[in-house]
C-alpha cells in the first residue's frame, strides 16, 4: 500500500511495482486528495479493507503527515484488519521496490519489512 500526498506519485510507484512483482501481489495506492495534494485517512482505511482478505498489508508512505493519516486510518479499520497492517520504516520508492521483490518471491511480512528497511542503507552511487 502506497500512501503519498500526490495521486500521481502513488500511482507511478504502483506501476513500477506491478512491472516487477507479478500478478500475485496486491499493489494499491491511497494517495492525494480529490483536488489537491494531501492524504486522507478514510481513503487509506478503505484501501486497506480492499486488500485481499487475510493478507498482510505493508504500508509505505512519503512524508510525516502521510504517516499521521495512515495511523489514523488504522484506528478506523476493524481490529482484525489492523493487526495485519505494518508500516515500513523505509524510503518510499526504494523501500517499495525492495518490498515488492521480496513479497513476489513469497517472503514473509517480516522479511518484506526488513528488505524495505534495508533500502535505507542503499547507496546509489557508491561504485
Amino acid at each position, binding site marked *: 500500500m502506497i500512501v503519498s*500526498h500526490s495521486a500521481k506519485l502513488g500511482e507511478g510507484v504502483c506501476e513500477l511495482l506491478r512491472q516487477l512483482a507479478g500478478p500475485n501481489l496486491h499493489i494499491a495506492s491511497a494517495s492525494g*486528495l480529490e483536488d*489537491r*495534494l*494531501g*492524504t*486522507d*485517512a*478514510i*481513503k487509506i482505511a478503505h484501501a486497506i479493507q480492499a486488500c485481499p482478505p487475510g493478507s498482510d498489508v505493508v504500508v509505505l508512505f512519503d*512524508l*510525516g*503527515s502521510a504517516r*499521521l*493519516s495512515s*495511523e*489514523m486510518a488504522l484506528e*478506523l479499520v476493524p481490529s482484525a484488519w489492523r493487526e495485519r497492517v505494518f508500516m515500513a520504516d523505509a524510503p518510499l520508492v526504494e523501500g517499495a521496490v525492495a518490498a515488492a521483490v521480496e513479497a513476489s518471491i513469497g517472503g514473509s511480512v517480516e522479511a518484506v519489512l526488513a528488505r524495505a528497511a534495508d533500502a535505507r542503507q542503499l547507496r546509489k552511487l557508491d561504485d
Partner: protein
Amino acid sequence: MQPLTAEAFVRVMDAYAQVLAEFRDVLNELDNRIGDGDHGTNMARGFSAVAEKLKASQPTTPAAGCQTVAMTLLGTVGGASGPLYSTAFLKLSAAWNGRADVDEEALRGGVAAALEGIMARGRAAVGDKTMVDVWTAVQRELQTEQPLDAQRAVEAAAAAALATKPLTARKGRAAYLGDRSQGTVDPGSLSSALWFAELFAAMSEGVVKPQWDLSAL
C-alpha cells in the same frame, strides 16, 4: 462560564469556519514561509465542510457534534493538521459522551484528553513549535485557574501562538528548515488559538477576541 449546548457547539464551529475563511491567506502565508503553504486552504476546506455537515446533521449533544467534526476533517483537510484536529475532536467527543452540555469541569477533562491525543498522534512535545504549544497553554489555564477566567484563557492561547515565532520547529514540515524555521509563527498554533477564541467567546459573555497584528506573525 455558561455550559456549551449542542446548538452553541454548532454555532462555534460555524463561526470558526468563517474565521478560517478570513484567515485562509494569512495561514497559507505563514505555512508558505516554513512549510508547504497549504494550512489555510486545508483548514478552510475542512471546517467549511464541517459547518455544512453540522447544519445538516443537527447533533443533539456536543459529543455527537465532535464526532461529526472528527470524521469530516479526515477526508477534507489533507495535511498533518487533518488527523491532528480529528484526533482532538474524537477525544473531546469521548470525554463529553452522554452529556447534554459542556461545563467547565467537562471542558477541563476534554481539553486534557484532546491534548494527550494530539501529542500521541503527532509525537510532538511542548516547545516543538506546533499546535501542541497552544493546547498546552489552554490546558494549563484550565488546570490552574478554577473557576476559569475565559478572557485569560483566550489571551494565553494567543500568546502561546505568538510565542512559537522565535522557536525552531522540531515536528512537521517546518522541521526540514531547522533553524531557518525561526521568525515565523507556527500556522497550526494560530489556527488553534483562533478556535479557542471562538469557543471561549461562546462559553463566556463579554470575552474580547484577540486583535492579530498580521505584520507581527
